[in-house]
């Protein structure tokens, strides 16, 4: 108990200094965790995507849709067991701030996404209702939706106000599964559009293909694109992960900057902490010399400094990790569903803890080395 007691009392000898240092570490570790979580959220879609699904879109741009009759031809490509399609709706629920993704989906779509867990009753109710919709648990909780609620969404791509009846709330099969998306029937959208704008009907934004064997992804992708080569709407087929990463790539520079900032924050607090520990050790050279005179080793003196530095850094780190969760929650509710997978991962927590340990060790390294090397007679001269 002697060493822990000594380290604890030494650490809090200058309460203000230590408190400010801990506050600094809390801020740095929380900021590090938040920035890492933002980056993770960006990649969440890609990480949660299946390797057994392909996405086919217009080779020109995602903005251009593809003829719906492509589904028949795609279904005939060897290696594909199922084909679905979806259209981005891009509507507004009450105000623009309430952003969330809405897709008009084909009947086969949900079967291809087993990660969206829906009860049989809800699935049937959704299938039976032309204006029915389903929403993820996170989204439903956010707006307080219940099954049976009428949800009006103002179209921005497809004009008018579209009112849906919520027929089900799906859960995520895994922790990383996105539960902040809204789905409704493609047929409802398609038929309505065909009535208003006949030339815009029977068009799908993307086709989704279920592969028999994920190892055949490259060959099947090539086969699909070959099928539509030299047509009016050529296709680009890629794995779902590659498709998702395509979105991430659009923001790659920002992500790199965020990642860089997250590490810079750690380096800054490391420098601040190192300065604090250097100051602390310098003030105590006389005490360290006394310890040595009494027979304690150089290693003991170095250990005291390392233990104090690590103690402060880990305390700040643990508090910083604890603060990250409510901060992340507050951030997620502020940004809405823009970053649907916004949750602090175990990996981020581990990185935060590791960062705190590194801060503690690095900050103590030079002061501990100097204190261990200080000659007893020189250290004793510092007293008086």
């Amino acid at each position, binding site marked *: 108990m002697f060493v822990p007691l000594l380290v604890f009392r030494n650490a809090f000898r200058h309460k203000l200094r230590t408190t400010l240092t801990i506050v600094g570490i809390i801020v740095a570790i929380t900021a590090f965790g938040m920035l890492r979580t933002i980056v993770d959220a960006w990649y969440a879609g890609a990480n949660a995507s299946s390797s057994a699904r392909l996405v086919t879109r217009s080779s020109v741009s995602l903005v251009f849709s593809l003829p719906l009759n492509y589904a028949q031809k795609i279904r005939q490509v060897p290696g594909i067991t199922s084909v679905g399609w979806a259209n981005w709706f891009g509507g507004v629920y009450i105000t623009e701030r309430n952003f969330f993704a809405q897709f008009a989906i084909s009947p086969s779509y949900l079967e291809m996404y087993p990660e969206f867990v829906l009860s049989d009753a809800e699935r049937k109710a959704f299938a039976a209702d032309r204006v029915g919709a389903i929403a993820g648990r996170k989204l439903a909780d956010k707006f307080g939706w219940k099954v049976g609620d009428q949800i009006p969404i103002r179209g921005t791509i497809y004009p008018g106000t579209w009112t849906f009846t919520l027929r089900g709330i799906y859960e995520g099969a895994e922790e990383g599964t996105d539960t902040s998306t809204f789905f409704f029937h493609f047929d409802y959208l398609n038929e309505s559009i065909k009535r208003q704008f006949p030339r815009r009907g029977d068009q799908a934004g993307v086709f989704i293909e279920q592969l028999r064997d994920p190892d055949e992804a490259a060959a099947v992708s090539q086969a699909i694109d070959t099928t539509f080569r030299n047509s009016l709407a050529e296709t680009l087929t890629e794995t779902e992960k590659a498709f998702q990463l395509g979105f991430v790539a659009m923001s790659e520079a920002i992500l790199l900057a965020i990642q860089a900032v997250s590490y810079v924050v750690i380096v800054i607090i490391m420098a601040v902490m190192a300065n604090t520990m250097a100051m602390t050790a310098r003030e105590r050279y006389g005490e360290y010399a006394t310890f040595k*005179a009494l027979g304690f*080793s150089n290693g003991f003196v170095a250990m005291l400094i390392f233990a104090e530095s690590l103690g402060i850094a880990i305390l700040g780190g643990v508090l910083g990790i604890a603060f990250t969760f409510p901060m992340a929650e507050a951030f997620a509710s502020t940004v809405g569903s823009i970053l649907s997978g916004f949750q602090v991962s175990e990996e981020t927590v581990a990185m935060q803890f590791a960062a705190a340990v590194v801060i503690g060790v690095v900050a103590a390294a030079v002061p501990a080395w100097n204190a261990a090397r200080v000659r007893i007679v020189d250290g004793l001269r510092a007293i008086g």
Partner: protein
Amino acid sequence: MSSPAERDTAGHAPAALPPDSEALVSIRDLSKYYVRGDQIIPVLVDIDLDVNAGDFVALMGPSGSGKSTLLNLIAGIDKPSSGHIHVAGVDIARLSDADLALWRAANVGFIFQFYNLMPVLTAFGNVELPLQLTSLSRSERRERVDTALALVGLTDRATHLPNELSGGQQQRVAIARALITDPTLIVADEPTGDLDRTTAGEILGMLERLNDELGKTIIMVTHDPKAAEKAHRLIHLEKGVLVD
């Protein structure tokens, strides 16, 4: 621990006088100098000195005469440039830093001018400090610390931090700390230098009792002739040389 060798640290010829096997401290041909740039600054020059067990020796001399340096060398917290320091038969000039630390823990009790107590430890904790390096159990340590604090009359101050004690009380804690391991030798560097005359008298009386009643060998550096009067033997140093 290294065994004594018949050559000095600089590889010079053996000392003219052999170490006195009867003496507790036997110093032969001891020199200490500092090198500053091209200059060699001698601090102690060819010192020969014997201190017997149970002696109370006062080292006196003007500032810069080398008395504190000599005390530091005897206590094993500094290393000589050349020569031998035998304490209870061990040539401490030959010991490695790690061995010297172990040797100090077992053989030397320190009393400093400014007490050098750990500010975050209570009087009890400070006195117990040297015992942390021993294999004694917690209860054994407690028993010893209680005895040492009673000896210096501070039983009722055991839970006080140094800043809650007067200068004289702090020095008494330091004396208890110096005694706690029952060391071969107690070294005191200006133990009354920071105290008023009355308190200084009490501290010197305490050192005297340690010497008379417990038979402790004490080597004390002092500027104060009144403090030196308490010692059995006075040793004068001037410009790094012993003078009678």
